[in-house]
């Protein structure tokens, strides 16, 4: 019984250390302001979930690159699209040239739902 309690105690301490360490690593600083709905340029998240850097510089993109703020199609054009073809989720990545080097530009790539 005593050994069980000791093991349980060790497990609890280990869990606390891991939990605090993880929380510290991801950062829990609260937002200081809300994003502007009218901003012309925005930062985007990279594969690691942090602000995307291309060629070592923070990348900012035109808001319009994410998609228009009002629907771009007329109802007639939209109705011609198959209801089975749903738009896929888009995420930002650094553009690379043929050699695999970053060009400094940002491209949006489609990804499977739920996957970064």
């Amino acid at each position, binding site marked *: 019984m005593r050994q069980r309690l000791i093991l349980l105690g060790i497990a609890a301490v280990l*869990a606390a250390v891991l939990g605090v360490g993880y929380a510290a690593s*991801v950062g829990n600083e609260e*937002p200081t302001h809300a994003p502007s709905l009218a901003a012309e340029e925005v930062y985007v998240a990279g594969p690691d979930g942090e602000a995307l850097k291309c060629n070592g510089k923070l990348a900012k993109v035109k808001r319009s690159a994410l*998609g228009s703020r009002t*629907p771009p199609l007329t*109802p007639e054009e939209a109705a011609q699209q198959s209801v089975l073809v749903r738009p896929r989720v888009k995420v930002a990545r650094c553009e690379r040239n043929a050699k695999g080097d970053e060009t400094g530009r940002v491209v949006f790539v489609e990804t499977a739902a739920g996957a970064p």
Partner: protein
Amino acid sequence: MGKLSMRKALALVPALAALAGGGGAQAHSLVTSGNVYDNGNQCVHNWTAQAHSYNSVVVHSLTNTPPFHFPLSNCTYSNSKPPGYLAGRWESWKWGPNVGAWLVCGTQGWNYGGGSELQVGRPTTGCGGGYYLLQGGAYVYNGGWLGGWLMTDYEWLWS
């Protein structure tokens, strides 16, 4: 102390780790909703919600009480539209503490539909633990696209 007890103790580690580290997670959805357009006959209701692993926008095409109906109320009756006349889109935002600004984690193109309600929803793009909020656009075509965007409050999510 047998092997079984040791296994039990070790099995507790991940659960306790989740408890210790996951205290910031909240077990509810953040919802912002309201009419984003109302001209008396045509109303557009936007319901934007951020759940733990799901983003959704619901577009409602509504109208006022039809003639000879009681009680009178505004923007409560369904106003059905042909296919392609309703549209919705969302953008998921994550707070970037390193830059002190909001980052767009992911977005999705416009979804179109008909009838009086369009539901747009997808699992989140998963940009890691952080504070997230959702912006959702809801529009109905009535001689032009009418509607607007709403934004939820933010909350801590682990994915």
